[in-house]
């Protein structure tokens, strides 16, 4: 192993003296990180959705005895999408040109249906055919779901006012007619002043039972409106940009391309410098040095990337994961993956290794299997590379 070590030292010295190549090697992980961040930022952007208001939505709508304010409801419901109010024509143009990804149309009659509470008011959704249409439909479904929840709150509040009237009595309106209700409470108090005949006692029992039952109506209504409620706990764990998968992809891409470019470039440089054939070392020793070069550079830069991720995780207060304790495991993977080089770079195995090394609770079995794969592929590729180099370089 003395000659490959000498050749490796020579390659590292040349690398250090090649400022452009070194800048590319150091800059490449940064470019990967920036690209990942950009993709992450894009993934986090709200899609623009046009709102076409053919119904002429008023600022608020009276539902029963309650006032439902539309603007704040839209703001709350539209957290996942960026709603822009447009005319029908403008919305159609923007959909065709891709500036909005969907149109939500509020047709004529929407407000009267909302007020009457007799049939469900309808919203119309139109999307353009695109790879994102599935996501848009889900976003708008979420928007309608949130709007429905706001309205359910208003409807339930309105219905509960009638229940309250039945319980405690008072003045109320229904379909524009005013009426005065005695109420179960006042009925009970009136009956208490009457002689307690068996009939009066029976009626009082019913009144009490009815009061108890109606007292539960509010919760029962809410439960009926939302048989299954989704409660969102505070955000926990790493953001998407720092996830194990993103790190694994960034490391794999970096290691793969760097190892391939450096080893292939370095081998080509040997030929350009006309030293192959006069070097007092075999082709196998030369290739071993190139494999080692890929492994060393991949390990150094990949570990630097893993440490940079760790620093960001610590300084940004990102929760979850173990940024430091897994670095040695990642370094092993970097050496193995870097050594396996080349056009047949085993992306799948490297990815599985890094994913398991970074976040699996019990990573050992996966690490062992993938390490065997990487070593075997390294051996196979080295053999092939020797044959190819003999044909191409000598």
């Amino acid at each position: 192993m003395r000659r490959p070590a000498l050749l490796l030292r020579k390659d590292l010295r040349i690398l250090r003296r090649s400022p452009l190549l070194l800048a590319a090697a150091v800059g490449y992980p940064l470019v990967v990180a920036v690209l990942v961040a950009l993709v992450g930022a894009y993934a986090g952007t709200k899609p623009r959705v046009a709102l076409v208001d053919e119904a002429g939505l008023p600022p608020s709508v009276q539902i029963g005895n309650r006032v439902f304010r539309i603007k704040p409801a839209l703001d709350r419901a539209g957290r996942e999408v960026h709603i822009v109010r447009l005319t029908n024509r403008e919305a159609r143009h923007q959909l065709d040109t891709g500036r909005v990804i969907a149109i939500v149309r509020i047709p004529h009659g929407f407000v009267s249906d909302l007020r009457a509470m007799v049939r469900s008011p309808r919203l119309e959704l139109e999307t353009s055919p695109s790879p994102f249409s599935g996501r848009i439909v889900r976003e708008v479904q979420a928007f309608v779901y949130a709007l429905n929840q706001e309205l359910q709150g208003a409807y339930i509040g309105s219905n509960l006012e009638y229940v309250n009237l039945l319980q405690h009595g008072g003045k109320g309106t229904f379909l524009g007619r005013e009426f005065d209700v005695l109420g179960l409470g006042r009925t009970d108090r009136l009956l208490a002043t009457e002689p307690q005949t068996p009939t009066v006692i029976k009626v009082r029992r019913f009144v009490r039972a009815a009061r108890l039952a109606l007292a539960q109506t509010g919760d029962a209504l809410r439960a009926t409106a939302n048989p299954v409620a989704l409660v969102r706990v505070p955000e926990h764990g790493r953001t998407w940009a720092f996830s194990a998968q993103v790190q694994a992809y960034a490391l794999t891409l970096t290691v793969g391309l760097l190892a391939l470019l450096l080893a292939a470039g370095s081998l080509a440089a040997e030929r350009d410098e006309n030293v192959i054939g006069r070097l007092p070392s075999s082709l196998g020793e030369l290739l071993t040095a190139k494999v080692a070069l890929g492994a060393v550079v991949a390990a150094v830069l990949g570990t630097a990337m893993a440490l940079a991720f760790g620093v960001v995780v610590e300084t940004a207060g990102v929760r979850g994961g173990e940024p430091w304790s897994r670095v040695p495991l990642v370094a092993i993977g970097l050496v193995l993956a870097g050594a396996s080089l080349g056009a047949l770079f085993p992306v799948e195995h490297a990815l599985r290794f890094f994913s398991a090394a970074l976040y699996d609770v019990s990573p050992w079995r996966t690490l062992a299997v993938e390490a065997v794969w990487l070593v075997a592929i390294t051996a196979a590729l080295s053999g092939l590379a020797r044959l190819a180099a003999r044909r191409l370089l000598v």
Partner: protein
Amino acid sequence: MTVLLAARGLTRRFGDHIALHPTDLDVTAGEAVALVGPNGAGKSTLLAVLAGSLPPSGGRVERAPGTSVGWAPQRAGHYGRLTPRENVELFARLAGEPEPEARATALLDALGLRDDARPSGVLSVGQRQRLNLALALLGDPDVLLADEPTAALDEQARERFWELAAERRAAGGAVVFATQAGDEPARRATRVLALEEGRLA
């Protein structure tokens, strides 16, 4: 006379083109063999195959036991981002020289190469050729194979090279060189071989 290096039915093809037809050659101790011929005659191919830098398509190269070969290709072969000293030391270490630093110093001095920090890639053509010859002389080879070794050298360096070649021959070695220089075969060679279209005349 001891045969140090021999070609037996040596051929080399590049695709359909036959660069070297079956060739037999003995290189004996103490001689200086000049290969002459027009461009494309096969001189460089024969030397590269004899040096082991190019595998033969047929035939074989035989070396006497313990015989070492030094090879100076026509286009200088060394690492452009390393200094001349680093190049010589690296090749010396790869060749297993016991004292690579001392050997590098001796060769740089012998060929008049400046021992500075300039990378070899920025040297003049003549300086690079001196480095090329220094690498070929590493390990004191028994047979020195050199392809147009003096083409880019000035008069003084040329004389120095022939002195070093004579030292090799005097120590029981041999020199085989290709040349286009008109008087060099007559002045420097003990035997002149003419090559034409891949065949020894």
